[in-house]
């Protein structure tokens, strides 16, 4: 229908849509939360398995499962990096689209006009927020004994 449609929108919602690739936008919005979620699920498994396999508890990690600790730290670092990369992409997208609609940035926060910069703002806040949340997950690793509980 597109080519023949007589209806043209008087006020297109995303005049700067071409400035933001869909893949980039998806990465900026999804990567941060996804990295955090992977860390929560995989982190729980890696932290628990050496001390609490099945129904038994051990005061020290089982021999042969010591690799889980460096794996956990490596996973955390990777997740932080992914979220940080998303933050950089989101920042670039936001810079490219912030003039999508007339008005100051506060207008965006209040009204959300301009679909592309609206999404770029989401990417910015999600990736920043989940980057910090993922980084904070380091605290229990450092503070808690490995097999406590």
């Amino acid at each position, binding site marked *: *229908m*597109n080519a*023949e*449609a*007589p*209806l043209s*929108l*008087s*006020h*297109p*919602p*995303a005049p700067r*849509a071409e400035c933001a690739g869909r893949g980039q936008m998806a990465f900026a919005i999804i990567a941060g*939360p996804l990295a*955090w*979620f992977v*860390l*929560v*699920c995989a*982190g*729980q498994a890696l*932290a*628990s398995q050496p*001390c*609490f396999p099945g*129904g038994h*508890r051990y005061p020290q990690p089982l021999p042969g499962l010591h690799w889980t600790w460096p794996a956990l730290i490596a996973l955390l670092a990777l997740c932080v990096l992914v979220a940080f990369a998303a933050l950089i992409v989101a920042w670039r997208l936001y810079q490219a689209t912030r003039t999508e609609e007339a008005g100051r940035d506060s207008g*965006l*926060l*209040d*009204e*959300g*006009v*301009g*679909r592309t910069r*609206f*999404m770029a*703002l*989401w990417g910015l*806040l*999600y990736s920043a*927020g989940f980057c910090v*949340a993922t980084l*904070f*997950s380091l605290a*229990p*690793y450092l503070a*808690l*004994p*490995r*097999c*406590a*509980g």
Partner: protein
Amino acid sequence: MNRADDRAPALGTVSPGLEHRLHELWEGEGGLKGFLSTVDHKKIGLRYIVTAFTFLLLGGIEALIMRLQLAGPNAHLLSPEQYDQLFSTHGMTMIFLYASPILSGFSNYLWPLILGTRDMAFPRVNALSYWIYLASGIFLYVGFLTGNGPNDGWFNYVPYALRDFNPGMNQDFYSLGMVLLGTSTTVGAANFIVTAMRTRAPGMSINRAPMLLWGTLTANVANLLVVPAVSLAFFLLWLDRQFGTHFFDVRAEGQPLLWQHLFWIFGHPWVYAIVLPAMAFVSDALPVFCRRPLVGYPLVALSTVATMVLGFGVWVHHMFATGLPALGMSFFSAASIAIVVPSSVTIFSWLATIWHGRPVVTTAFMFFASTIILFVIGGVSGFMTASVPVDWQLTDTYFVVAHLHYVLIGINLFPVLGAIYFWFPKMTGRLLDERLGRWNFWLIFIGFNLAFLPMHLTGLFGMPRRVYTYGPDMGWNTLNLITSVGSFVIAIGVVLLLVNVVKSRRSGALAGPNPWGAHTLEWSIPSPPPPYNFALIPAVASRHPLWEAELHEEVRSSLDRGLMLDKGKETLGTTPLDALPDMILRMPEDTVAPFVLTLGLALLFTGMILKVWLLMLAGALVLTASLLVWLWPRRELREREPAHG
């Protein structure tokens, strides 16, 4: 929903001829056949609301009986077994049969109206979702009324739910009923998601969509992801009980904690699924009474989604007392605390909207504004239990019961009651009585706080949950009596609401299309809406199509001139992000197929519970036949090519 053809739709203005043509096309049959075959989202939405409200009343009666039992020590109104079934059925009813379906009802009714379209994307699936919901509710209540209701709490922990400890049919009814209900929720969720993505009015890009779209969409994406977990858990439990498998049987190396993981992976996102659409009611309706747009709309929409994202990572906080390792729990504790951030954004947005607005205090406004207070109380107690050491002290006490009621009544029932006062005029054409409404509000608000605020203390004083009675020297007598009195005050308030609905439906003041001077599309059409909703598909240029002049916006939505789409039962398909016109969608006619399919499913599940193979076979045959009729490709919908050119 099928693509109709490649023609360009005509633009036009409203005329009596157009309205007549559309009425002919969209008006369904009357009588019993019409009742069973309708796919109109408005009728289905109202059925959802009425059915869910009926379950709310049943759950409320169950609560009142429990409160009579607990009003004083050593009471013998109920036996321990009866009490077990009653509190479990109360939880099941309120959480599964009321809290989510009532929101589906409102969203079913309202979505096509707020989105500027003529129906949901899959109207037949919509009907199927309702019929299966009704069938599962009846199925579960047949169990309860025959003494086979759930008796192990709504969360149904193993090993108590296994056959050795629970030999009756109670758990079989619950397991199969929940699998059935899961089917309804899943197909309904798919329908909501496609409707949100493909049928918004042209120009309604995602940043111009009402908050109700964000709330319901987020909830349904979550449902689609997590409902299979609980359906699987209940199915595995049924296999353990009936076929001797050992998924949860610790004696055969099964894992009791597997049940808790599967249940709460579903259960906690479900909590958000039953509050986020209700919070969206507040976000959309509160600004109407404040006479200004919602403060910080993009942040509130973002917070809605963020709440659900974080909600996927908090399920273990229901399992802090199960002996999981501290390091593992720390992740979930942190996530449970972090969820305060997006919730607070919404709270502060509502407060700022009231602060910067010119509030008009109506009954609906009072219900919405009081949600803020109750949300904060429920949020603070939730924040407390997110901390592992505090949770160890409070778990399984009445403190947690108080917390969950502040969340579920405060952020579900109160917004729903506000929504009834707000949208009743749209649904019926008449306003609810404001004087009765004030009585209604104050009785429920005071009764609720009388019942549940002292309950925090009851829990802190050590009263455990799920006990059918208590001794006179425990120090809980007065607090329990106050809670019981409060629960009956709530009941009087609910009765007043029913009186108001019946009275106002008959003789309430006429509402007109927009009695509140609201800003979204549903208020641009008559009350109640005609069968086709919009004679012309509107084109949207802002988030407040009806307030553009008031807000001195530079843009103007097109409501008087739009696409006519009167060549058949049609609506417009638009693109997911920007809602650009994409295709004409042919909508299906009424059919009894969803109803017959549900009958087949009900027969199948009845056969499974009774272990009557013939009944199961009959159910499977009916189900297959109705699917064939439903899905058989039809030439007029272009599902298959004509035989000769």
